[in-house]
């Protein structure tokens, strides 16, 4: 950031800027990282130190009010900071799930939402039925009427941080085509979790729902989910733009310190220009996300903008990470280097809320006049 230039994260309180700032970022980047092939085995358990740090960061987020209701501009700026630090946590899904629960207007969710805002009840968002269909089309969910309430059947094989959360906010498509929400307590026989082993090596779980009891009512949310998803995509776009910029900064640092061909690689125009172009793209993607967040705060419909912002940021995050690895040379391929973290995480995060093609299809379908389909 140039001296005196406006701070794109100005909407975020100073303590949070510090928490996700450059000093702690190297630690946060590796937080929750598991050995490869750990799957659901013993080595998938977090070390004590790692778990302690993770809890401390979460507690700080809660203490500073980041988990409660905030303006989208602030949330989006915070997401950008978290993305730059590659911070992995239930934060994003908790915020999205809480927004959906709130939107139903059901007062029974009040105590849980209060606890979520205080950091005491992280929420897992369970939407996808498989790896192919994006969250805009929630997976099938069978809803049963039981004597004492509702129960649901289904599978959600890509659910983040399910093991850390007391409740799953399950979004699904009922047999009559209606999109519904069911709040499912995790600790019950009808809920089965299996940790996945994915390229991100983080906290991805397959969730099986077998006559899982629902807490309270099952709400139709077909009219609510697209708006909530759009806001989530805006935040996620900011996070990916932040990650892209951080990958660029890491590569720039490497170019400054690495001497070859008679001087620092930073003096070479070809890599410098490639990084400059990526930095410009990252700043532009972040500006787009900020503008969409501000529009959301003004009550505007950001479904199309959210899809477009995420399309740009997701593709960019992968490209910037790949370039960062490349400019690190073979060192970039090693586990010791951090560049590979950006590459692995971007593979997951860039399609977490929809692949590029899905996002473009949605954007094309919702464009104003002239109206591309």
């Amino acid at each position: 950031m140039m001296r005196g230039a406006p701070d794109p994260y100005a909407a975020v309180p100073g303590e949070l800027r510090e928490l996700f700032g450059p000093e702690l970022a190297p630690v946060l980047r590796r937080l929750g990282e598991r050995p490869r092939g750990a799957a659901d085995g013993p080595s998938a358990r977090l070390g004590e130190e790692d778990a302690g740090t993770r809890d401390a960061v979460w507690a700080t987020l809660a203490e500073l009010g980041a988990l409660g209701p905030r303006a989208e501009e602030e949330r989006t700026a915070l997401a950008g900071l978290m993305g730059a630090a590659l911070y992995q946590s239930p934060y994003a899904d908790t915020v999205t799930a809480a927004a959906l629960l709130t939107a139903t207007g059901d007062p029974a969710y009040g105590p849980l939402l209060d606890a979520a805002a205080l950091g005491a009840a992280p929420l897992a968002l369970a939407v996808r039925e498989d790896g192919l269909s994006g969250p805009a089309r929630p997976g099938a969910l069978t809803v049963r009427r039981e004597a004492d309430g509702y129960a649901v059947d289904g599978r959600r094989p890509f659910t983040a941080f399910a093991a850390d959360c007391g409740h799953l906010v399950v979004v699904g498509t009922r047999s009559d085509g209606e999109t519904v929400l069911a709040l499912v307590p995790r600790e019950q026989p009808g809920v089965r979790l299996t940790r996945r082993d994915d390229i991100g090596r983080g906290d991805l779980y397959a969730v099986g729902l077998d006559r899982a009891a629902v807490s309270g009512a099952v709400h139709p949310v077909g009219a609510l989910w697209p708006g909530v998803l759009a806001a989530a995509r805006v935040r996620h776009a900011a996070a990916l733009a932040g990650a892209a910029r951080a990958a660029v900064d890491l590569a720039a640092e490497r170019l400054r310190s690495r001497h070859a061909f008679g001087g620092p690689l930073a003096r070479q125009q070809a890599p410098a220009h490639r990084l400059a172009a990526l930095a410009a793209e990252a700043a532009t993607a972040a500006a787009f996300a900020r503008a969409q967040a501000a529009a959301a705060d003004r009550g505007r419909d950001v479904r199309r903008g959210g899809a477009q912002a995420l399309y740009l940021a997701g593709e960019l995050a992968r490209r910037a990470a790949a370039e960062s690895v490349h400019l690190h040379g073979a060192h970039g391929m090693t586990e010791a280097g951090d560049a590979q973290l950006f590459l692995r995480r971007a593979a997951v995060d860039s399609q977490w809320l929809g692949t590029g093609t899905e996002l473009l299809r949605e954007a094309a379908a919702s464009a104003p006049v002239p109206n591309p389909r």
Partner: protein
Amino acid sequence: MTGGHPGALTPAEEEFRGRVRALLAEERVRALAAEIAAYPPDTEAARLPVHRWLGERGWLAPNWPEEYGGAGLGAAEAALVTEEMTLAGIPDDVHVLGIDIVGRFLLEVGTEEQKKRYLPALAAGEEIATVLFTEPEAGSDLSALRTTARRDGDGWRLYGRKSFNMKSQFGDVALCAARTTESSVAMHGITLFLLPLRSPGVHVEPLPSLCNDRFTVVVVDGVRLTGADVVGEVDNGWALMNDLLQLERTGIDFHAKARRLLDLVTERAAATGRLDDPAYALPLAALDARLRAGHAMAWQQVRNLEAGRPDPVGSAMAKWYVTEQIRPVLDLGLEICGLEGVLTAWDGAAPDGGVLEAALRMGPSHRLASGTSEVMLSLIAANGLGLL
């Protein structure tokens, strides 16, 4: 403009935009835009009545003080005028050169006498000011310029050759960079002068180019200027050019051009049925996303200017990003229009009056003008990333 405004306009700004848009939607303006689009070869827009119509209201330079013919408004209103003019099909070169560049220099560092002499006439659309920085051997590297100001008593005589400038054949005055002091440091010793273009000793020759508008070559042969013609301090021109050109570089103007083109291409896709084909619809949605992102970035620069915190790195990013989108827009335009897209305005049957064909010829200019893409990347790399 599709998809809402990323600048989060205030009610007053919305209202201002509505008034500007209403003026530019008047039949007389639409007729003028159609007339310009149908100009025969070697005819180009210069002193346009629409400049006067805007100027009468203080809207041609809305961010200038009222005493100099502006409306006393801010950078946002100036950006809105630029956007609306371009979207209405009004060429913006005269506006950019006279108002955004020469006017900006005079406002920032001009003498009171210079401001009173030139600014009201420029803001009224009555006079045209152009820029004479570039030379045959000094383009992006302006420190290499060779135009010389030789001491002549209490003044100077200018000798040199300026090239690749625009609209000088129609101009009244030009902001001209000349070397006043020889120095081992190339950037030192450059001074900016106000050069009356209709003086004996100034010879302007059009230089045909790819575009409808021609470049001009301006030969300056001993024109005498005095201290009253110096803009800023003697020998300090390099710093001024570096500092003040950045203020003009928000990307707003380039974005508006790209947006107008993409909207035309999208409309053409709808008219031809190609919008129903995902092979065309998805790339259109992708380019729409890029332009909306570029628009947000450009408006961020406008807001930075307004807050008195211009961000040279951000401005370079905005300019680079937006102008890099024009080539893919043109490529997709050709894919969608096919051979109809290569028909010129003079063919009589070209879609949209041959706008795409003209834009194809103009395409390369956007990555060159106001600092080339490579200069922007170098600026970002050096000042934003600590490289180079």
